[in-house]
């Protein structure tokens, strides 16, 4: 049980909401500057928010308690419809960032991806290496850093210093590898572009091959590696090889020359290459 006096006082307080005498007039009010600051903030919030369509903020009176009305303001529902949803900006930003990231990733991943020409060149070289008896060591140290090596590819070994460059599809004969694969057992088209270092590489492969395979390897090398279109240029190169003491290379080149230009050899009366039939296998 509670004290009746206390109950009475509490009930009185509940009615009057103060324990102080009425003479203590409560005149506590916020300062005028505070009123001004709050109302200004409210006004600025409206002004900086979504501007009403066609509406203008008009100050009806000056001073801290200036009444500001919106003239020509649209109906509330109308204004709400023109306001973008809250998630629009974050979603748009996220989508933009995602798009940029995907583009950058795509570009960076495709930078070092092997082109079809490079892949074909690697396949051709792998085949040439297999025909040469697969006795080569890896020449990965000679391959440019940006060249992709297929896992199963076997690159022709012991090439000259320019061999990888000669097999590059970016060389002056961009169609050479494709032609070589297509006409593996045919004579190389005389209009093939000029690739000065390619014969050196194929020569190296031929030199390490077994002697019994020489005709086949030479023919394949002739088919694989492009040669000068002009037979006179080719002959000058062969002469240069002989002059340099590379007789084996010169002989192999001559074999290829005969395979490529049998008629030219007959006309000029070049000595027949040992072990090479007058006409190359077709």
């Amino acid at each position, binding site marked *: 049980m509670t004290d009746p006096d206390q109950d009475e006082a509490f009930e009185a307080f509940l009615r009057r909401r103060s*324990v102080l005498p009425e003479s203590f007039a409560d005149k506590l009010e916020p300062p005028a500057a505070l*009123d001004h600051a709050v109302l200004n903030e409210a006004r600025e*919030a409206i002004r900086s928010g979504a501007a009403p369509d066609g509406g203008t903020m008009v100050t009806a009176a000056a001073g801290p308690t200036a009444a500001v009305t919106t003239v020509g303001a649209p109906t509330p529902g109308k204004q709400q419809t023109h306001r973008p949803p809250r998630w629009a900006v974050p979603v748009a930003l996220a989508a933009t960032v995602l798009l940029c990231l995907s583009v950058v990733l795509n570009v960076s991943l495709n930078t070092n991806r092997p082109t079809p020409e490079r892949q074909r060149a690697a396949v051709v070289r792998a085949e040439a290496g297999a025909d040469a008896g697969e006795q080569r060591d890896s020449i990965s140290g000679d391959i440019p850093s940006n060249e992709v090596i297929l896992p199963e590819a076997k690159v022709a070994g012991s090439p000259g210093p320019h061999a990888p460059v000669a097999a590059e599809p970016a060389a002056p004969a961009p169609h050479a590898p494709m032609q070589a694969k297509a006409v593996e057992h045919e004579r190389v088209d005389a209009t093939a572009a000029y690739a000065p270092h390619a014969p050196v590489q194929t020569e190296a492969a031929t030199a390490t091959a077994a002697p019994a395979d020489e005709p086949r390897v030479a023919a394949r090398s002739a088919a694989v590696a492009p040669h000068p279109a002009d037979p006179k240029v080719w002959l000058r190169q062969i002469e240069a090889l002989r002059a340099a003491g590379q007789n084996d290379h010169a002989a192999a080149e001559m074999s290829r020359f005969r395979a490529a230009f049998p008629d030219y050899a007959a006309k000029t009366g070049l000595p027949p290459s040992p072990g090479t039939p007058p006409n190359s296998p077709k």
Partner: protein
Amino acid sequence: MSTDEDGDLMLRYARGDLRAFETLYRRHKSALYRYLARQTRNPEIANDLFQEAWSKVIVSRERYEPRAQFRTFLFRIAHNCFIDHCRRASVRNEANGAEDGWEGMLPGPEGDRPDSRAEQAQLLARYRAALAALPAEQRDVFLLYESGLSLDEVATISAVGAETAKSRLRYAVAKLRATLAPLNDTFSSAVAAIQEPGA
């Protein structure tokens, strides 16, 4: 002033009607300022919290839904502002012993008679001490109720049940009354002066 009217004013302000906000502000600014002033007992802090509370009302205008009375919404914001302030500055304990800001934070006696002023100054000093000695929960409930809120609103703002709020209020009133008992004459006359039930 009705719940629907305040809520409608807030909704109108959210749609860009500044006049609606001015009406809301005029209605509630005094009660809110008194509550904060007596809670903080420091005019500068009270001003800051007062402005902070209204700023939050302004910022949240688009999210406002008139599910409860606007007054409850406003005082809950102010209550939370005060709680945050106490947590930030750990001023609750400091404020309990603070004496600097009391002047002007409590109602002043009317009249110019020197004897009356001395009596009322003594009453005020006791009242101030009693209010400061109240537990924070009881003081909060007391000041909220004194600001004009109903017991249900006080309970909502304080996040307690209505009975808990009433109990805290009862304890607070009893302690204040006991403190002011020595000045029985003045206090009794004050209690007797109750003329407006439900005001």
